[in-house]
């Protein structure tokens, strides 16, 4: 136990920095994934052919093993001299986050009660007003569930990013492996788990806070 | 025959859902359990096939204490139909209907024949529907399949918990008729839960009216309508529900359909009533004068016969069974 405390004392600031780095990597990827995925998911509800195509592509993307995708990013991004580090990891995480976000947005908007939509049309709302005042608020909890899935997946996969020099908590684990240091491995894992729980808790809070009272059950 | 002997059910939480209920369902009878929501109808029903344990008292089936029988054996001899039809989505219609025969190890050929016979009963084509899955049928069709599934192994007893409750009124009435028709053929002993008074009157040979787990009255529908034993029973069926309906009919209609009684020449001082009088007045006359019979006369004063409370009741029973909607809600 003493050893533990000593270890944590020495490494506290480094653990903290790596956690922040991890959070920024995942956070930035999720943000961009949202900017792509939510509008795309909404657009897909107006085009069934495209919906099928896009969801198929996204689901194949999610089956690609993470280390393989990270690995392939290296030579691909080397073409533009960004082979290692933040950018390839970031792009890979954006890709992984697409499926849950697009799929949940698409199904949620599509499942908005048609009567409610009719009522909105009856009230003379324009399509944009309808989207922002009726459809998105009602689809919100399901969209948030998709975002939560994406975040949890990405925090886990982000660990592997350490192998392509993107930093983050994976660094503790990879170093622990090369040095045979279980303290490092366990600390890294626990930090990842805690980060995942905090992020999920935060998203649940947002979901509760902004879900219209009438549809929260 | 099913006999309830001081049957009682107390749930773990302490709710006593059924309190010392006594009555007997004779072989070949339909007995409807009726009462407000939460009065213990479902609980009482589920104690018969031991889906609920019996806390106190007994249930005897054909004279045998149900607790002395093996619960699996017992259930295979009792058909069970529930409101949400309970059809298994992973099985075709044929597999669904034939599940109990299958459990009992019937031969393929026997099952096939039985399935066709059952489907004929509900006028559905066994070829067309046999290979379909439940979700490919309408609600009414699903419910009828639920009924014949319970009949599949020809159990002597049937338990039915609001079997037609989820259907819309028009289809419900059709299926009720169809079921009564089937019952004529199969002659099962049936316990039937309902919270619909019209349905109860239509289906029942006898009604058990429950309130808070207690049996309020056990009688034929017409007895209950004409002679409610308590204010609760009267209220439940709607005040004057039956009496009002009687005012729509005359003695002549009764005479045409079931005929009058022979009058007893020996009795002197009898009261007479015109054949064009409505039955409501007739009944109140019979009840108020406490006369056993009233002589019916035509406009010329000829004695046509006698009328008694029993005859009015018989007629009422006949009428409401044939056209339950004539009995207006109170």
């Amino acid at each position, binding site marked *: 136990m003493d050893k533990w405390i000593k270890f944590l004392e020495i490494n506290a600031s480094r653990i903290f920095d790596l956690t922040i780095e991890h959070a920024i990597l995942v956070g930035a990827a999720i943000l961009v994934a949202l900017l792509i995925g939510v509008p795309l998911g909404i657009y897909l509800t*107006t085009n*069934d052919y495209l919906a099928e195509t896009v969801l198929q592509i996204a689901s194949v993307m999610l089956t690609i*093993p*993470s280390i393989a995708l990270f690995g392939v990013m290296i*030579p691909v991004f080397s073409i533009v001299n960004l082979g290692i580090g933040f950018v390839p990891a970031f792009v890979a995480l954006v890709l992984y986050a697409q499926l849950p976000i697009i799929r949940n947005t698409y199904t949620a908007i599509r499942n908005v009660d048609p009567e409610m939509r009719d009522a909105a049309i009856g009230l003379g709302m324009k399509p944009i007003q309808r989207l922002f005042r009726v459809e998105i608020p009602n689809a919100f909890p399901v969209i948030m569930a998709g975002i939560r899935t994406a975040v949890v997946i990405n925090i886990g996969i982000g660990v592997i990013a350490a192998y*392509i020099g993107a930093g983050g908590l994976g660094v503790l684990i990879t170093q622990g*492996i090369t040095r045979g240091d279980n303290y490092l491995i366990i600390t*890294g894992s626990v930090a990842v788990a805690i980060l995942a729980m905090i992020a999920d808790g935060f998203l649940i809070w947002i979901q509760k806070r902004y879900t219209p009272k009438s549809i929260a059950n | 025959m099913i006999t309830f002997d001081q049957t009682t059910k107390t749930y773990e939480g302490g709710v006593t859902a059924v309190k010392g209920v006594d009555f007997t369902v004779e072989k070949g009878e339909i007995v409807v359990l009726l009462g407000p929501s939460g009065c213990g109808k479902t609980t009482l029903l589920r104690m018969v096939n031991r889906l609920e344990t019996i806390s106190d008292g007994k249930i005897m089936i054909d004279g045998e204490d149900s607790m002395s029988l093996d619960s699996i054996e017992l259930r295979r001899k009792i058909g069970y139909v529930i409101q949400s039809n309970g059809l298994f989505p992973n099985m075709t219609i044929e597999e669904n209907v034939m599940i109990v025969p299958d459990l009992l190890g019937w031969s393929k050929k026997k099952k096939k024949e039985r399935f066709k016979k059952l489907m004929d009963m509900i006028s559905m084509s066994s070829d067309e529907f046999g290979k379909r899955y439940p979700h490919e049928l309408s609600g009414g069709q699903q419910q009828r399949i639920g009924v014949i599934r319970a009949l599949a192994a020809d159990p002597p007893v049937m338990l039915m918990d609001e079997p037609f409750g989820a259907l819309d009124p028009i289809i419900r009435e059709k299926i009720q008729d169809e079921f009564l028709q089937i019952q004529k053929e199969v002659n099962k002993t049936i316990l039937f839960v309902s919270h619909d008074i019209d349905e109860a009157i239509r289906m029942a040979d006898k009604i058990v009216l429950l309130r808070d787990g207690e049996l309020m009255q056990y009688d034929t529908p017409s007895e209950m309508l004409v002679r409610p034993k308590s204010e609760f029973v009267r209220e439940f069926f709607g005040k004057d529900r039956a009496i009002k309906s009687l005012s729509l009919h005359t003695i002549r209609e009764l005479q045409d359909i079931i005929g009058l009684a022979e009058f007893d020449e020996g009795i002197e001082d009898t009261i007479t009533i015109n054949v064009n009088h409505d039955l409501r007045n007739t009944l109140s006359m019979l009840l108020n004068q406490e006369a056993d019979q009233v002589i019916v006369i035509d406009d010329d004063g000829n004695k046509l016969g006698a009328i008694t409370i029993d005859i009015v009741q018989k007629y009422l029973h006949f009428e409401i069974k044939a056209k339950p909607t004539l009995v207006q809600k109170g």
Partner: protein
Amino acid sequence: MNKKKVISLIVRYSVYGLVALFFFWAISNNYFGYIFSESSTFLLLVKQHMQLVLVSSALALLVAIPGGILVTRKSFRRAEWVVSNTVNLGQTIPSLAVLALMISILGIGFQTAVFALFIYSLLPMYRNTVAGIDSIDENLIDAARGMGMKPVQILFRIELPNAAYSILAGVRTAIVLNIGTAALAYVVGGGGLGVWIFTGIQLFDNGYLISGAIPVTLLAIFVDYLLRLLERRIVPEGSRPPQEL
């Protein structure tokens, strides 16, 4: 042809185009060369990879599905909360860490990797088994009991067939995930195609990298496809969800 269909086709063929472009680029740089020049090593790595996945998945299947069935029995309901939360918590631990921690317990090698992969495959299988059984309408079980089916008959004739869709989806998820995680087995000396991927990363050798990464990816996509076909065969027609993509 309408406009929506055209957009969809354009997107589909652009993606095909990108994939083709990638392969063209990789082939013209001879990045797949090692598959042919070191074909015996390649085949060995593929074999190791499949062994890792098969053994660990089979073990997980044997533990997770009976486990899921067990905790959904009436008498074990109380245990469900504890088991489910333990398994859920386990899943937040990164796969890499599960592998790494096994080193200190089991040393380095094939068994360590198998054991870690096994642990990691439990959750999706277990969770979907429980969810599948839990989602069955209470009334169905009631009807089944009412007609005199024994608990074993209810399990095999009603519960498992109706939960099959969910259970098999869990198995597929677990196995596909497992193929990817098995690529990390390299770090515990478990072999598999990860060996080339990591070699490639460490030596900046795109040939090794691509010769390892692309076969793993194709394996995952292919197995996913196969298992979807299998699902379609096994799951009873009546208990499939109304729409599937």
